[in-house]
Each structure stands twice: as structure tokens, then as C-alpha cells.
């Protein structure tokens, strides 16, 4: 064991962390927006639009993230960072759409109808009746999806982006200290995931207390 190797490579690890954070944050935003869009389209009254959204979810979640990222990079010709973020956003959006969809379905339709009958607007129904209940249902699986994004961000290394896992392997090939490097990176990923889980729990509480 030679743990000092982690300290020697602290700058490489920090810059790797910066890339991982950037990919994760951008993907979280992109995937959530796309996921909301697809979930809304799925609820759309039009049969065709609803089925299209369903097809999107089915097709996208059955294709490995690596394929999407490679396709965007090699075939569509995007640069490495945009290809990674867009590929991962599309990948995760299908899962997030599914999660949101399930959340909305969990609230019985009668509640909306009752609120509508009481004279609430659609926005008021969404705000006062649907969202508080949907949020509690959706938060735990959504948290899992966000944590999944943290881990999936390692795919970016296949395009030569020097993110956290890339830097770890660099430590391994340069010093053969793979065990130390893997341990350090495990701790970092764990910290990232726990931060996201904590943050999501906080947001969930804020939203339900309204």
C-alpha cells in the first residue's frame, strides 16, 4: 500500500472530479427536462402522441448508453463533451419519463376531477393536488436515477474525456497503484452519490411541506 500516490495525483483527481461534476450536472438538467417532456407527451390526449412517447421510452432504455454516446460522437460528429452529455441525457430521460409517468398515475383521477368540480384551475390542481402527492412518490426513484447519472458519467472516458474514472486508470497505468486509486475514486463517487441523495431528500421535504 502506498496511499501517498493519491496525494501525488491530487490535481489529476480534482480535474477529473470537475469533469465528472460537469457531466453529471448537465446530464441531470438535460435528462430531467427531456424526461418531463416525454412524460407530458405520454399523458397527451392524442393517441398518436401518447404512443410515440411510449415508443421513445421503450427504444431508448433498451439501447446501452455507450452506443448512444458513440453514435453521437462518431456518426453524428459532435464533440466529445456534447456527445457525452447529450447521449447520457437521452439515455436517462427515458427512465426519468417512466418514473414521472408512474408518479402521475399513482394519484387517482377522481381527485383531479373533484378539484375541477370545486372550481380549481388546471394549474391549481397541479400545484395543490397533484404535485405534493407525486413528489413524495417520485422522489425516491428519481434519486436513484440521478445517482445512476453519476455512475454512468464514466462512459465519457471512452471518448477521451479525462473524468474521474479515466484519471484513476491513469494512476494505475502510470504507477501500478490500482488498488489505492480505485479505493480513492470509490470514496469520491460514494460522496457524490450521498450528496445527491441528501439534496434530493431535502428538496422532497421542502416540496411536501408546502
Amino acid at each position: 500500500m502506498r496511499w501517498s500516490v493519491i496525494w501525488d495525483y491530487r490535481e489529476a483527481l480534482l480535474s477529473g472530479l470537475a469533469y465528472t461534476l460537469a457531466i453529471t450536472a448537465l446530464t441531470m438538467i438535460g435528462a430531467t427536462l427531456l424526461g418531463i417532456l416525454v412524460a407530458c407527451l405520454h399523458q397527451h390526449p392524442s393517441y398518436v402522441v401518447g404512443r410515440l412517447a411510449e415508443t421513445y421510452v421503450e427504444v431508448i432504455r433498451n439501447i446501452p448508453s455507450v452506443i448512444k454516446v458513440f453514435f453521437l460522437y462518431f456518426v453524428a460528429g459532435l464533440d466529445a463533451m456534447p456527445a457525452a452529455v447529450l447521449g447520457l441525457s437521452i439515455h436517462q430521460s427515458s427512465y426519468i419519463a417512466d418514473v414521472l409517468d408512474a408518479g402521475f398515475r399513482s394519484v387517482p383521477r377522481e381527485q383531479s376531477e373533484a378539484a375541477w368540480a370545486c372550481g380549481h384551475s388546471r394549474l391549481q390542481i397541479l400545484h395543490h393536488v397533484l404535485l405534493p402527492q407525486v413528489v413524495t412518490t417520485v422522489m425516491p426513484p428519481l434519486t436513484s436515477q440521478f445517482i445512476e447519472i453519476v455512475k454512468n458519467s464514466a462512459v465519457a472516458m471512452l471518448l477521451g474525456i479525462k473524468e474521474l474514472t479515466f484519471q484513476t486508470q491513469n494512476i494505475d497505468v502510470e504507477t501500478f497503484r490500482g488498488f489505492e486509486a480505485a479505493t480513492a475514486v470509490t470514496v469520491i463517487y460514494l460522496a457524490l452519490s450521498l450528496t445527491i441523495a441528501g439534496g434530493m431528500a431535502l428538496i422532497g421535504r421542502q416540496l411536501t411541506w408546502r
Partner: protein
Amino acid sequence: MYNPISRRAALGATGLIVGAAGLSHAPAMAQGATAMGDTLAKVKAAGKLLAGVRNDFPPMGSIDTSGKAVGFGPDIAEVFAKKLGVALEFVPTTSRTRIPLIQNGSIDCEFGITTPTVEREKTVDFSIPYVWDAVGMIIKEGSSGKVADYGPPKKVATTQGSYIIDLFKQYIVNPDIVLFQEYPDAVQALRNGKVDAVGVNVASSVAYVRPGSGLMMSENMVRDPWGIMVRPNDSNWRNWLNYTLQVIWKEGTYKAIWQKHMGAEPDFYMYSPYMLQPGV
């Protein structure tokens, strides 16, 4: 100070923790003994040679459409197994997995594309050079063949962990290096204009630089020896490999296999540029 033993101990300890090494100390010790002991005796006793071969480096070693290992490395490994009179099992290696695999006993030796470096010699041992290759760059047809012309804004690529990274830094001023995990990805990036050159071993370029591919080779940066990688402090095994290499060179088997995969005679000689080791 660097201590090569401690990593093996770490691996052993990890194995013990995850239970892969079993409940008692004994299996871990056995693994340690394999790592330190006589591989030649082990291979003969097991009746099987575990040969590490590349699966991403045609024509040195790759996987054919049926999933079988093919190439120069696998063919040479077969000759060695025949000389030993044992069965042969291929274990795929990559630039990142080859050293852990030899350390933990998953392979007995690697017929790969590994250049003996001072850093690597701290952890593993090598046979005499079994291939003399060169390092150059795959470039698009019609572009400059001079390596020094590939400074920024041009991008040069190779794989993570390759020592070609150091050569780039030596031959190009402030190179913009993009690192991929596998060579096919790097060459694909060159074809799509993502990078302007891919640093490779010339032997492996045969698979990519073909008539009609639109690709060609730059000038060579250096000539580059490859050794058969073995575990450290295992003279019996290493001597046997060194000896057998020269025997199959003398018999002409080596040359035939090289010709089959490279389409030309080897432009080097085994053991030394002039002769085989006295006594072979």
C-alpha cells in the same frame, strides 16, 4: 520507496476480504506461491498454458467473427503450447488488464505487444525481444508524414496507458493528445476527422492502413522491442521461453507465422541482429 511486493499483498488481501480466495489463509498462500514459483513446472503439471493474447490489436491479436482469438500472438502461443505438449487457453488482455492478469496468475505469460520499460520491469519480467516493431502514426492520405508537423491545433491520439504518449511529448511541441480506451476507437476518430493522427505500433497498423482505406503511415518515431511478459523472478520459465523462441526461429516456424500475418518477412533477427544465442 517503490515496493513491488506490497501490491501483490494488497491484491491477496482484497481477495481474502471478498472471499474469492476462500475462508482460510491457504488458498491465498497458494496463489502467492503461484505468483512466485516455477511457472514452467506449474504449466506442465496443469497440462495447460494460459496465454494472454490481445483482442484489440490486429494483426498481433484480435477476435474473429466467431469469437476465436486470431493473429500473430495466438499463433505463436500455439507453437509454444505444442512444444510443451500441453493444452492451450487464450485469455484476452488489454493495455490496462495485462499486468494485473499476470500478477494474479490468470495468465502464465503474455504474447502481446508489451514493450519492456523500466517502470514495468519493477512489477513484471520480460523475455528477450520477441518482435522488433517500430512506432509511427496513422495519418490520412495526402497529409504530412513528418511527426513534428502535428502540433496544435492538430490533435494526436493513442490509447490510455500507452508509452506512445511519452513519444508524442518528445517528438511534438506541446502536443494535444486525445486518449481512447481501444485502438479501433482511435482510428475511427481519425477517419471522422476528430483527430489528425493516431500513434501506433507499425505492426498493428497493417490492419488499418490498407489500399483504399484512405490512410497511410507517417515516418517512424522509434524502433520498439516487444517482450513476452512473465512474472518476476521466474528464471526457469523465462529461460525456456527465450530458448524456445530461438528454436522456432531456427526451425522457420516463426518466420512462416510472421509472413502469414504481416505479409512480409521479418526485418529483424532473433536474439541479436547477427546470430542466435550460442548453444541454440
